[in-house]
């Protein structure tokens, strides 16, 4: 009997697992992607779409993953192929479960590179190297630091090159993952998450007390920054531009925020050349791109569809609560995103660059974080210190996320190949190191990173999440799933979530996925015209891109590797032969 007792890795405490899941969800997207999206689409309309997506996609999938993970963990499975195998006798689910390995492993390969940028920027800000007079200078440093200017140029090891930071963060991640679930991930998140919150509060206070940093530009203020981010009605100044036939097209010149700019815009609109237009919340809500952006934000922000929550939950005990824990981890992510990210980044940028300056510099994740904000901190009083805090905060957020991306792979190697932790870490370390080297070497225009992010970090996640919720609602059964979720629960899931999980969430996800394909893959615009997105033309266009092809080949290679591994795991076949899932 004694020989049958095995050592099982697990969580030390409930707060530990909540912090680990929250840490997995809170990443650089909370502080850079969310503010950019909300400001672009108008705070009011975006928040309506965002909250809708949170209730219809975020919470249901989150609870489903927690319940499925804990249930499958009770059968001794901690990785997606094994877990999906528990819920169906067919072999298809366990092969779809390979997505739950490919997604985190591939994302880790480029995410650790971005993590190294955060650490590098923190060090360079603290040592006073990041003083840029213009956004173009900040962009030039970014290209040089990340190697975006030329393939192979990221492999330098000077203090203003990414190489040395990459080695440091890669080593840190694997050291923590080697220490195990409780001594590594949980231990780190117990310190990192509270530290992250403290840093964010310090930066938030600094930003909200900026007022009007330059008296000569009173329109560049924190208040206008908050308005740019949260005002429900977007106001634009438009210019009449005649074409060759004399037909006039109205082109947006700038967004108008604050009474001073509004007064100037109204004065300009006295001439026939300009006009001021207002886009209401209701008009913005008719924009499918905004729904896509809001759903995508919820999706990626909560780390649903990655296979991570499933894996983390599989280490819970039978009567550990999953409902309140899931909601707490989710709410921690929402707090960091809306209450901290939503009040820091854009208001600070507008206070120094103005609305037009920020819009000109770009509001994508990388533009906002690594072009705009270094400029902002170099102009801010005490900016060297606060800039360091901000990039260190991003670094902590990134580490807690990247750690979670390693655990599913480790869990599979331990469970499927019966390897010990040391062997699993060594194998996964080699696989991810080769992938990361590929991403770093082909750094020109960040092509490899961008291609992997699109096909894995967006496309595959949609597929995986849709499959998961169908498995939960239709194969396992939503009633059985909810009974399982309520075992040991500290609170109840509202009854309305039953039909939501079974019908609404899959339909909503499929709808968003169709929108994604139409707009982001087929490149259809509002005029009904279509031009295939560059991600497709890079592969099958007239001039295929070599790096894009190699990136897709890397995804396929990793996928085939895991499929072959999964097909040889006796434990999965034996599970159903021995009677399958226990009823308890």
């Amino acid at each position, binding site marked *: *009997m004694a020989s*049958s*007792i*095995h*050592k*099982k*890795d*697990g*969580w*030390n*405490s*409930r*707060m530990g697992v*909540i912090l680990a899941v929250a840490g997995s969800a809170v990443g650089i997207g909370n502080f850079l992607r969310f503010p950019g999206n909300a400001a672009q689409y108008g*705070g*009011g309309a975006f*928040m309506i779409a965002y909250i809708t997506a949170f209730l219809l996609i975020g919470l249901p999938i989150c609870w489903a993953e927690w319940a499925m993970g804990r249930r499958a963990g*009770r059968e*001794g499975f901690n990785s997606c192929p094994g877990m999906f195998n528990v819920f169906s006798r067919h072999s298809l689910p366990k092969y779809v479960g390979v997505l739950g390995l490919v997604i985190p492993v591939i994302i880790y390969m480029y995410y650790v590179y971005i993590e190294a940028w955060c650490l590098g920027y923190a060090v360079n800000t603290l040592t006073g190297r990041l003083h840029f007079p213009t956004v173009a200078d900040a962009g030039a440093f970014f290209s040089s630091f990340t190697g975006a200017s030329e393939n192979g140029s990221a492999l330098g090891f000077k203090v203003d090159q990414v190489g040395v930071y990459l080695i440091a963060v890669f080593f840190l991640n694997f050291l923590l993952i080697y220490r*195990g*679930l*409780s*001594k590594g991930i949980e*231990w780190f998140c117990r310190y990192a998450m509270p530290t992250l919150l403290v840093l964010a509060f310090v930066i938030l206070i600094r930003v909200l007390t900026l007022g009007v940093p330059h008296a000569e530009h009173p329109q560049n203020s924190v*208040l*206008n920054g*908050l*308005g740019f*981010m*949260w*005002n*429900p*009605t977007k106001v634009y100044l438009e210019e009449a531009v005649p074409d060759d036939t004399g037909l006039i097209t109205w082109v947006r010149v700038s967004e108008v925020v*604050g009474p001073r700019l509004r007064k100037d815009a109204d004065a300009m609109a006295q001439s026939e050349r300009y006009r001021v237009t207002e886009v209401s919340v209701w008009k913005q809500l008719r924009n499918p791109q905004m729904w896509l952006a809001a759903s995508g934000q919820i999706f990626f922000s909560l780390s649903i569809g990655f296979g991570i929550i499933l894996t983390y939950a599989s280490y819970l*005990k*039978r*009567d550990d*609560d999953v409902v*309140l*824990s899931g*909601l*707490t981890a989710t*709410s*921690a992510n*929402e*707090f960091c*995103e*809306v*209450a901290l990210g*939503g*009040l820091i980044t854009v208001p600070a940028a507008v206070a120094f660059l103005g609305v037009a300056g920020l819009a000109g510099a770009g509001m994508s994740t990388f533009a906002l974080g690594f072009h705009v904000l270094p400029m902002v901190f170099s102009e801010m009083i005490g900016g060297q210190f606060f800039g360091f805090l901000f990039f260190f905060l991003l670094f902590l957020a990134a580490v807690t996320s990247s750690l979670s991306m390693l655990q599913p792979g480790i869990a599979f190697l331990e469970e499927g190949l019966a390897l010990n932790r040391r062997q699993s870490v060594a194998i996964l370390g080699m696989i991810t190191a080769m992938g990361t080297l590929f991403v770093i070497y082909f750094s020109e225009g960040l092509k490899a990173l961008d291609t992997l992010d699109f096909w894995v970090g967006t496309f595959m996640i949609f597929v995986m999440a849709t499959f998961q919720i169908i498995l939960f609602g239709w194969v396992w059964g939503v009633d059985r799933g909810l009974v399982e979720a309520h075992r*040991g629960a*500290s*609170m109840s899931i509202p009854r309305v979530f039953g039909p939501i999980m079974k019908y609404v969430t899959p339909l909503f996800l499929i709808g968003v996925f169709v929108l994604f394909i139409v707009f982001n893959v087929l490149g259809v615009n509002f005029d009904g015209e279509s031009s295939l997105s560059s991600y497709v033309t890079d592969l099958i266009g007239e001039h295929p891109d070599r790096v894009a092809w190699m990136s897709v080949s890397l995804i396929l290679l990793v996928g085939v590797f895991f499929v072959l591994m999964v097909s040889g795991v006796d434990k999965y076949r034996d599970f159903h032969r021995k009677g399958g899932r*226990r009823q308890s």
Partner: protein
Amino acid sequence: MTTGGWLIMLGSVGSVTLLFACCVIKVMKDPFNPEETLHGFDPDTPDMPDEEEDLDRSL
């Protein structure tokens, strides 16, 4: 910043803050997890054998 902007911002920030605070308080007060209050500064009991499950299997 317009009145609508203030309402949206305060509503959004307030609601997520309230949700987060309520969840944390509920977790802290939850009677089902007495080990939360028992652990020391750096708890070191990660690899407990899951005897119940193994006994289940062996039966």
